[in-house]
């Protein structure tokens, strides 16, 4: 293990010189066309009276009885035009800002909201609790590869207000941008906004620098969740960015073909984005398409297949062709549980490699997840980090210019000489040797020996949990946030809203 040092939170996107395209321009045009036809002729279910009224007011074809919204293409494109291609998801400090679309590369999430965790001390699989969220947020705060995070597990000890406790645990343990994907009702959304205002200092500050965002998962095929979409409407009101995710399961909740699944996914996400743009033109959005497939022999949900990954990466082109940023890649969680297993390794490598090269604005990155993002194991996050370390290196590509062509060096060294003592070599090695591995380096030149990375990962996590002290919120703000969550815990309307949520 390299010698770890305490440091303040920082973020590090990965920029790729290598580029790939999955779809040709004509194929993109066809999927976009088909998406618009689906929205015009089939429509999307919005089970919210408020949302239906908003669509009707701007001229969409709304069937109030069946809660189906059909959207003419010209109307869709009118509202998509105000969704920004570049915007900021703010950290608590400007140097932690995620500047989407500004060419800095792909930013990585620590995501999840898994219901279960491998207990770090006992190794037992158990339901996750609030303290687990706090611990993982602290680990994510320490690792620069992570730019923004979700509460990575559920606070199962907190009942229906678990999403709010999750946010509190994150705000108290990281300065990085925090996103929720489990606030799925309008009352919890208002409490979340209250927390964000308390931390930002004022509503105006929050609008200016949103330290919170929401990811809303659509219901495939072609439906939105009532509570979720009503929460999104609240966030949108306050200028909080809202990402829309579609999770088509090929052959189950979507056509079995990637092109059809993409069509469906774009219809779901774009219809949601249109709603947010009607409410607050210019509010930040992104699209995420995370396909899965059913293991046809067992019925298990399976994230790690090649067809699902290629569909996911094709969505980068689809989102960008509509002028919307994209959050790609859903692996780091597809494999069955075994810390450091080879299947997890290759799945994660190729899916992230493709996403970076496709130019994703953000990607689900090191999270520590297994089993279709249903199980967290803290040390796994370091294995994920190692994979991105290699990807960062490879995607730098090769620089070709007079300096790197090295003619002068070649001439100077001539035949049978060595380049090791050349000044240029000494300088170049600073950049060509990849950034440090935590798991495979012991840092000491003498007596260097291989150690089991699983063991090293456990030591590293212990070190981080013991030594990393994230910059905490001012005490009065912390107390204010506590009060807001405590009030939510006692809110009977919130309980009714969550339980009655259909």
């Amino acid at each position, binding site marked *: 293990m390299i010698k770890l040092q305490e440091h303040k939170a920082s973020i590090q996107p990965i920029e790729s010189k290598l580029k790939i395209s999955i779809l040709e321009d004509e194929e993109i045009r066809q999927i976009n066309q088909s998406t618009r036809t689906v929205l015009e002729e089939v429509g999307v279910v919005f089970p919210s009276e408020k949302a239906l009224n908003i669509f009707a007011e701007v001229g969409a074809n709304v069937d109030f009885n069946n809660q189906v919204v059909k959207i003419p293409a010209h109307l869709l494109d009118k509202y998509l035009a105000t969704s920004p291609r570049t915007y900021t998801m703010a950290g608590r400090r400007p140097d932690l800002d995620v500047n989407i679309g500004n060419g800095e590369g792909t930013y990585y999430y620590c995501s999840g909201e898994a*219901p*279960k965790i491998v207990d770090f001390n006992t190794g037992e*699989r*158990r*339901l996750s609790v609030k303290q687990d969220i706090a611990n993982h947020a602290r680990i994510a705060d320490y690792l620069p590869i992570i730019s923004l995070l979700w509460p990575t597990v*559920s606070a*199962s000890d907190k*009942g*229906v207000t*678990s999403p709010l406790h999750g946010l509190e645990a994150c705000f108290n343990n990281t300065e990085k941008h925090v996103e929720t994907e489990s606030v799925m009702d309008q009352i919890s959304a208002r409490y979340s906004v209250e927390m964000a205002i308390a931390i930002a200092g004022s509503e105006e500050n929050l609008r200016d620098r949103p330290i919170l965002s929401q990811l809303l998962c659509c*219901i495939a095929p072609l439906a939105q*969740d009532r509570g979720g979409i009503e929460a999104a409407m609240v966030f949108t009101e306050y200028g909080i960015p809202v990402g829309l995710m579609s999770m088509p*399961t090929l*052959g*189950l*909740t979507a056509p079995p073909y990637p092109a059809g699944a993409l069509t469906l996914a774009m219809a779901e996400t774009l219809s949601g984005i249109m709603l947010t743009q009607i409410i607050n033109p210019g509010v930040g959005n992104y699209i995420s398409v995370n396909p899965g497939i*059913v*293991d*046809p*022999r*067992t*019925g*298990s949900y399976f994230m790690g297949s090649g067809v699902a990954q290629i569909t996911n990466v094709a969505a980068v082109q689809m989102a960008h062709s509509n002028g919307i940023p994209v959050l790609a890649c859903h692996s780091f969680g597809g494999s069955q549980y075994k810390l450091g297993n080879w299947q997890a390794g290759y799945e994660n490598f190729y899916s992230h490699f493709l996403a970076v090269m496709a130019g994703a604005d953000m990607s689900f990155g090191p999270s520590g997840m297994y089993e279709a993002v*249903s199980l967290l194991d803290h040390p796994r996050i370091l294995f994920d980090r190692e994979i991105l370390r290699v990807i960062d290196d490879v995607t730098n590509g090769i620089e070709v210019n007079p300096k790197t062509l090295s003619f002068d060096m070649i001439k100077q060294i001539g035949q049978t000489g060595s380049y090791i003592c050349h000044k240029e070599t000494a300088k170049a090695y600073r950049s060509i040797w990849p950034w440090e591995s935590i798991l495979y380096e012991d840092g000491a030149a003498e007596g260097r020996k291989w150690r089991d990375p699983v063991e090293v990962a456990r030591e590293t996590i212990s070190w981080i949990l013991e030594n990393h002290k994230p910059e905490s919120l001012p005490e009065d703000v912390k107390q204010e946030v506590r009060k807001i969550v405590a009030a939510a815990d006692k809110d009977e309307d919130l309980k009714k809203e*969550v*339980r009655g*949520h*259909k």
Partner: protein
Amino acid sequence: MSEEIYQKLAQAVIDGELEDAEALAKQALELGLEPLDCINKGLTKGIQRVGELFADGECYLPELVLSAEAMKVALNVLEPAMLGGKQRETVGKVVLGTVQGDLHQIGKNLVGSMLIANGFHVIDIGVDTPTSEFIKAIKENDATIVGASALLTTTMMEQKKLIDAIEEAGLREQVKVMVGGAPVNQDYAEQIGADGYAEDAVSAVNLAFRLVDAPK
């Protein structure tokens, strides 16, 4: 003639041909065939074959689901025509539902299809189902197994409430309870007093066979 119809019914199920299965069932009734024979000698034979093919990896889930659907449409024609309170033979009767507050249905539906394909009679009571609906369905159908699905940490406690309600209704001796869903595991199942937990559709079928003590 009757043998030919039975065989065609079996084949319609094997091929997952819904329209054929329904038309053949109607034809069988028009010809005056005994509905129970059509089920036992036709549909059940077909679905058993599908179950074998699935177990051998020669048939995939989408094909199996189509076969189960074909069986269902034919049963919808044949069962109402059964006279004198006759009932088809099944491995067991399973009431299946997603608990209150939870709208997830995919896992439950897959389990349902798999159980049908393996000879169980499945009564699917849908999603967001109050405990009282489960109890009602158990009583009305004289069920032997209840399957409760929960995909959220906020709804998994409904599974415990259901078990408590089954106790209260005096039905605990009659039905075995199996639970499933992402946040649920074997430990939790034991903790709430369920009879078993299954992590996917195939395991759910194996569990159901164990619970009714029937050979698979």
